[in-house]
């Protein structure tokens, strides 16, 4: 390296190739993967780290939470296996919720990459697995009920499968073929990553990635530091109540800006609860960093440099930093509140970039049962997003996913898999919070059971009692509603449905931004014409129709 100058052109080309390598390798994984969640929903992440364990780049298809949790996973792996204990061809595995993504259903792996006998990089990936053994449910009281925990261990030792680990997994999983298939698909991706990285280093005469990594990280860090430094120093706080299970819980957030450093602390947040809605610190940090990046420096690359000036803390034992044996299966029910807390805190000083609250945490429903005909059992998960918060430059889009970015599924495909009829999937008028820019409209879904056999329905919904807030004078969106045959049901519950039963879900609407009195007449008229607001509500919010 030293003999060849690393000018901006050459650095740019190498950086681009590193980005390209992880994208190609991630495709190798996706194409070889077995499970639907990985192949089709891209519920995965693939990332490249330097020998020091600094994140360099990740595949474009990665989901935001996993990208943010992988650095801590690698650090934990290196604590267990110092570099001297790593060999070419090793793969280390774990799904420990606390060093991983916050629940057991995501398996992470790390593969050290050697050039000769020199450690030059790590490839790391995380993939969701639908089944991890155990019996996760809305009523789980500790994490041991939630499935198999794989401790940090070598699943491949110097290129040889570790049969003991493989046997443990096979014995404990309901669908070992699918999960092990995904794991082996990642092995193939690591081999591919190894070969491609060596080819790059050969062609560029690099003995080591460090000089390149130093530049990548320094330039990204500089970009984030400049963006933070442009914000006024100070402490900016926000706090709000959320539904919880039996009683409301509190999220408290303080963002401190000191020169080019930004710190987020969640002191004052409610303690962890004996229900599976607790978030671990690593998951909290991932969503906090994602939120800061979206808000402060969205165009810069995402790596150890861009994360360096951002510090995230939460008191041990709180809802956003739960300690074992807290149940954590539905950790998104608290973790998805992290971005709105940070946005709320920074709103006063970032009026040109801010977003009001969206209708999240993500809503989902599981339907399971047995077909009346010979198709056997079914288990189907169905996702529904709420309205998006209003933005500083316009209205919030209706039903757009944030922050999880999970898409819906066609009704026509759903009805082939589940013996139900969907009667409605439409916008709810007046559900977006009023404001100069209004929140995105929420949706109403109506399901009707058609089978003679009963159907078990499991839901985990939030924002029934506390709707998405508006910001800077904007009004809140509409709260969510769960009903069966016209009767409200608990938002975290399991219900048995019989033929003819009718289920109504109304997701939460997005919050508005700035005072409604500032909304322009043309936008008000357009919403009325399109029936997104009713005349009565328009009169109430805006003073005219």
């Amino acid at each position: 390296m030293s003999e060849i100058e690393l000018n901006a052109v050459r650095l740019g080309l190498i950086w681009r190739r590193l980005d390209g390598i992880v994208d190609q390798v991630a495709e190798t994984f996706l194409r070889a993967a077995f499970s639907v969640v990985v192949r089709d929903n891209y519920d995965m992440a693939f990332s490249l780290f330097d020998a020091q364990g600094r994140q360099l780049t990740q595949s474009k298809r990665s989901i935001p939470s996993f990208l943010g949790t992988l650095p801590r996973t690698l650090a934990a792996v290196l604590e267990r296996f110092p570099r001297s204990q790593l060999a070419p061809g090793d793969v280390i595995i774990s799904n420990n919720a606390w060093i991983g993504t916050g629940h057991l259903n995501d398996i992470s792996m790390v593969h050290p990459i050697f050039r000769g006998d020199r450690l030059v990089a790590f490839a790391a990936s995380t993939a969701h697995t639908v089944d991890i053994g155990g019996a996760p449910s809305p009523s789980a009281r500790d994490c041991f009920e939630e499935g198999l925990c794989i401790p940090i261990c070598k699943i491949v030792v110097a290129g040889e499968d570790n049969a003991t680990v493989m046997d443990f997994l096979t014995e404990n999983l309901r669908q070992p073929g699918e999960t092990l298939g995904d794991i082996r698909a990642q092995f193939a991706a690591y081999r591919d990553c190894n070969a491609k990285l060596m080819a790059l280093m050969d062609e560029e005469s690099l003995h080591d990635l460090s000089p390149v990594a130093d530049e990548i990280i320094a330039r990204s860090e500089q970009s984030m530091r400049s963006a933070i430094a442009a914000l006024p120093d100070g402490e900016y706080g926000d706090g709000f109540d959320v539904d919880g299970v039996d009683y409301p819980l509190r999220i408290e957030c303080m963002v401190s800006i000191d020169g080019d450093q930004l710190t987020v602390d969640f002191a004052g947040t409610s303690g962890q609860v004996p229900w599976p809605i607790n978030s671990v610190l690593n998951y909290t940090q991932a969503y906090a960093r994602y939120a800061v990046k979206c808000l402060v420096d969205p165009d810069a690359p995402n790596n150890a440099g861009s994360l360096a000036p951002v510090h995230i803390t939460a008191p041990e034992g709180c809802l956003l930093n739960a300690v074992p044996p807290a149940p954590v299966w539905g950790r998104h029910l608290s973790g998805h509140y992290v971005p709105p807390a940070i946005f709320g805190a920074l709103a006063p000083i970032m009026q040109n970039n801010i977003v009001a609250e969206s209708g999240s945490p993500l809503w989902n429903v599981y339907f399971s049962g047995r077909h009346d005909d010979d198709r056997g059992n079914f288990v189907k998960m169905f996702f529904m997003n709420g309205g998006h918060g209003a933005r500083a430059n316009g209205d919030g889009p209706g039903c757009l996913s944030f922050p999880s970015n999970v898409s819906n599924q066609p009704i026509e495909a759903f009805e082939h898999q589940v013996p139900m009829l969907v009667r409605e999937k439409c916008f709810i008028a007046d559900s977006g919070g009023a404001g100069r820019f209004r929140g995105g409209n929420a949706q109403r879904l109506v399901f009707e059971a058609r089978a003679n056999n009963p159907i078990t329905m499991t839901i985990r919904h939030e924002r029934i009692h506390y709707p998405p807030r508006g910001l800077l004078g904007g009004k809140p969106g509409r709260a969510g509603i769960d009903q069966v045959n016209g009767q409200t049901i608990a938002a975290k519950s399991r219900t048995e449905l019989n033929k003819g039963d009718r289920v109504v879900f109304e997701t939460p609407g997005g919050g508005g931004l700035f005072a409604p009195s500032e909304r322009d007449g043309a936008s008000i008229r357009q919403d009325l014409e399109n029936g997104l607001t009713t005349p009565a509500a328009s009169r109430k919010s805006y003073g005219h129709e």
Partner: protein
Amino acid sequence: MGMNDAVKADWRVGVDIGGTFTDVVLWREGADNLVQIKLLTTPADPSRAVLDGIGQALDQVGIAAQELTSVVHGTTLVANALIERKGVATGLITTRGFRDVLEIGREWRYDLFNLDIVMPTPLVPRRRRLEIDERIDAAGLVETPLNLDQMPGLVEDFRAMGVRSVAVCLLHAYLNPGHEQALGAMLAKTMPDVAVSLSSDVSAEMGEYERTSTAVANAYVHPIFRDYLERLVAALRELGYQHELLLVLSDGRSIAADVAVKYPIRLVQSGPAAGAEAARLFGELARQRDILCFDMGGTTAKACLIHDGEPERTVNFEVARETRFAEGSGLPLLIPAIDMIEIGAGGGSIARVDQRGLLQVGPDSAGADPGPACYGRGNQFPTVTDCDLLLGYLDENSFLGGKMKLDRDAAALAVRVHLADPLGIKPIEAAWGVHETVTANMAQAATIHAIERGLDATRFAMLPIGGAGPVHACSMAQKMSITRLICPAGAGVASAIGMLAAAKSFEIGRAAPSELSLLDFTKAVELLNDMTTEAASLVASAGAEDDQVTRRFSAMMRYLGQGYEIEVPVTLEMLEHHDRDGLLASFSECYRDRYGRSEDMPAELLSWRLAVTGQRSTLGDSLGQRAAAGEAAPVSRTGRPVWFGESFVETPVFKRSDFGTGSTIHGPAIIEENESTLVLPAGFELSVDGALNLILDATS
């Protein structure tokens, strides 16, 4: 064709209307040469350039329009109307409860970090989306009968809103089109002046959002396209042309105007698809069945894979993206299309120094107007073309055959001010950096496109077309570890040539989701017979004689619950014999071919497809025989200094016409043609085959 009249010559014309140029190619069946005309597109009335071009071509060979036996046409009209949102006021009728499906979409953000993300505005606003009581279930059975009594109210609303075209998309209509057809009949009666697009007719595929989007896009452009075709057909008649007009669809097939007029959305990618057909033809001539077609012009660069002699196809298409290159930011269309990917913004791509202090090329483009800085039309930012000029790849005096003089000083200034000075490097190093960056970007995008399809791009031969394709091809091939390139003659008018190469053909699909273990073979045979009848009538009207027609059935299949389906060839016989194991074996084989293994998992079937194809064009046979002996080792007439990364190297410059069959040279060299320049770096050997293709092989 011409069967009853063997003495008379068959003269055929291909016409491609692009954004900047309209290309016309005239060919006499059996001849080994083509008449090629390139003229500026006339956006106000595109048919003017078409008629002009045909007139010029006819004059060159001294024949009258009466002697033409076919005119095949492709156009960007449909794509432009969608991109520029210049369609007509359109209405939509849906099943009650589902009018917002069109706007809710898939609820997914195509850009993770951008909070101000812009989602595509639906072509039909909510007030013009009306609902009707009816329901068909997932088995295709009527659950709620259609309430036609509600129609007069809907018609009145549409009239009041000035609607000129109506789309109808009802749930599960791909299984049972009865309700849509009843609504169509009623609309035809009560609103005879309004165009009607039924989703079951335009695209009988499962997935209510994508199918609605397709039907709506079809309705949105229908009246405009119909008017355009009527004008063009009338003008061709007036010129003396006596046969039917054929149109090229997005899948590279061609069909008669009276069929195409009902499905304008199928023409959305008409020109580029014909370019892929040309690449297939050129590949055949060079005996290459695996081709990466790389088409780079002024504003865009596209890649398409031809695998085992067939272009890769898809039924998932996207148009009018809000963010360039961002999948998911446009309007989804379920139409048969050649699977192409946009891999770059072309020669007009603007280079800059980004916030990291590094070179960034694109995605924005100076386009054709004002174009690169060296065009001297007011753009001051450096583009890929400007850098190609400074590197010596292009020559300021021979660009476009000398018709356009380039401003070297303007290019040098742009590169120095905006790139070299901020980066603290020499201008020539910055120009080289831009060239390397843009080819690296395109190489990466094309490689990933291949991996996504389970194909290994390194085994493909690259075939560059378009004005800027041959300039960047070798550099890109090196980065993709591709070792052979084929540079055909006439690459500048490839789409128009592809139109002459395309067989008359039409593809239809019918969704019929079922697990393989539960497949009702009797129903499947019935459905395939219905499809055969329908397709036969469509192709017959395109002039294909029945005894020349081939039918190809296939099934779109996947493992139960997977998201990617693959096309599996099937025979009617297989279904008649209820050969479940045979169907599974066929699927497993296709799956193995693509992904290197098959699984022990249940399979399911999504839809049936049928492609009906008339006689193949003999253009390839004719062009394959145009060998013209050339000098074994031609001598260059001139030379110029060219930069290949280290220093300027005095490099010989050839004319393409210097080469004949059997000629061989080694790089570095520059080979100029009227519409493009081939850059041949050291490490490549050039030879010429029997069809006058330049074959480039990597030697190092």
